[in-house]
C-alpha cells in the first residue's frame, strides 16, 4: 500500500486527465487504470462550453483529486492557483508545478522550493514537480513536501527515464514517497521506474493520446503492478560476466579449439 500524508492508496498509478478526446473516454480510461489519484488543472471557465465540467464526470468518493498549478511561472502565481484549487476542490492536496519556460516546461527549482515552504505552512499537502536533482529532493522534503515528483523526461515527450543514475539517488535517499512524473511514454518506462523502487508513477499523455486509451490504461496498470512486484521480490544483481543457469558439471564434451580457456 502506498501512503502519502496518512492517506493510503491501493494503486500506485496516478493518471492525468488532460488531452483525452472526450470526458467519457477519460472516465473509462481512469476506471480501467484502477487509479485512485488523478491530476486536474484550473482554467478560466469557457463560456462557450459551460457544461464542460470535469467535477461531475468523476466520482470523487473513489478518486482523489490532485489539482496542479500548471501555467504558473513563478512562486506567486503558483500560490494563487493553489488557493483557487483549494476553494474549487475543497482539498488540501496539490501538485505544485512552476514552469517558467513554455518551451521546455522544466520546473524552476528556486521558486518550487519557495512555494512548497509557503504552502506547507498554509496546510497544503504539497507534491512538488521537480527536476531529477537529489539535493533539491532533500530540500523539498525538509520544508515539508508530502512526496516528491521527479520527472522521467520533459512533460509530454514520451522519452522515459532520462536520468536513471540521479533518480536512483533520489529514491535511495527519500524519506517521503517518490512519484515519477512526466515523460513516461510506454508501460515499460513505468515498470522501469517501479523496479527501481519508485513509490508511484504519474502518466497522462501516453494514455490519453494512445490509439485506444482504455487499453493503454490497462497496460499501464499491469506494468506498474509488475514493476512493484519485481521491486518487492528483489531483483538479481547485474554483472558483466556470464553465469550459467544450468549445471556446468558432467557435460562430456571436448574443449573447443577457438576458445581460450
Amino acid at each position, binding site marked *: 500500500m502506498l501512503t502519502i500524508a496518512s492517506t493510503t492508496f491501493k494503486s500506485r498509478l496516478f493518471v*492525468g*486527465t*488532460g*488531452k*483525452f478526446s472526450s470526458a467519457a473516454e*477519460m472516465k473509462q480510461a481512469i476506471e480501467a487504470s484502477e487509479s485512485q489519484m488523478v*491530476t*486536474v*488543472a*484550473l*482554467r*478560466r*471557465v469557457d*463560456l462557450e462550453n*459551460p*457544461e*464542460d*465540467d*470535469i*467535477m*461531475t464526470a468523476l466520482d470523487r468518493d473513489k478518486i482523489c*483529486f490532485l*489539482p*496542479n498549478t*500548471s501555467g504558473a511561472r513563478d512562486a506567486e502565481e503558483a500560490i494563487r492557483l493553489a*488557493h*483557487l484549487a483549494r*476553494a*474549487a*476542490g475543497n482539498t488540501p492536496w496539490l501538485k505544485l508545478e512552476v514552469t517558467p519556460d513554455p518551451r521546455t516546461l522544466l520546473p524552476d527549482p528556486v521558486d518550487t522550493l519557495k512555494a512548497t515552504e509557503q504552502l506547507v505552512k498554509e496546510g497544503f499537502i504539497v507534491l512538488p514537480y521537480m527536476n531529477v536533482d537529489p539535493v533539491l529532493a532533500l530540500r523539498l522534503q525538509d520544508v515539508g513536501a508530502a512526496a516528491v515528483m521527479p520527472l522521467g523526461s520533459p*512533460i*509530454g515527450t514520451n522519452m522515459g527515464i532520462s536520468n536513471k543514475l540521479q533518480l536512483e539517488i533520489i529514491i535511495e535517499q527519500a524519506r517521503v514517497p517518490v512519484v515519477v512524473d*512526466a515523460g513516461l511514454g510506454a508501460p515499460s518506462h513505468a515498470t522501469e521506474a517501479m523496479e527501481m523502487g519508485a513509490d508511484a508513477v*504519474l502518466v*497522462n*499523455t501516453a494514455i490519453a493520446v494512445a490509439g485506444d486509451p482504455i487499453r493503454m490504461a490497462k497496460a499501464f496498470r499491469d506494468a506498474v503492478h509488475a514493476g512493484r512486484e519485481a521491486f518487492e521480490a528483489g531483483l538479481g544483481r547485474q554483472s558483466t560476466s556470464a553465469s550459467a543457469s544450468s549445471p556446468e558439471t558432467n557435460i562430456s564434451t571436448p574443449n573447443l579449439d577457438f576458445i581460450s580457456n
Partner: protein
Amino acid sequence: MENGLTLVDLLTELNLEPGTVVAEINTKIIEQDQYEQEVLRDGDSVELIRFVGGG
C-alpha cells in the same frame, strides 16, 4: 449591470452550476457559501475558474 445582482444570479445567467466554479472578485477568492450574499458592483472584475483536464 443590474442593481443588486449577486454572484449566484450571475452564475445562473451564465448556465454555470455554482458548486463547480470558484469565483474571484477583484482578485479576492469568494467562498462558495458566500455566493448568495455576494453582491456585484459596477466595475468589479470577476474571474470564474474551474477544474479542467490536466496532467
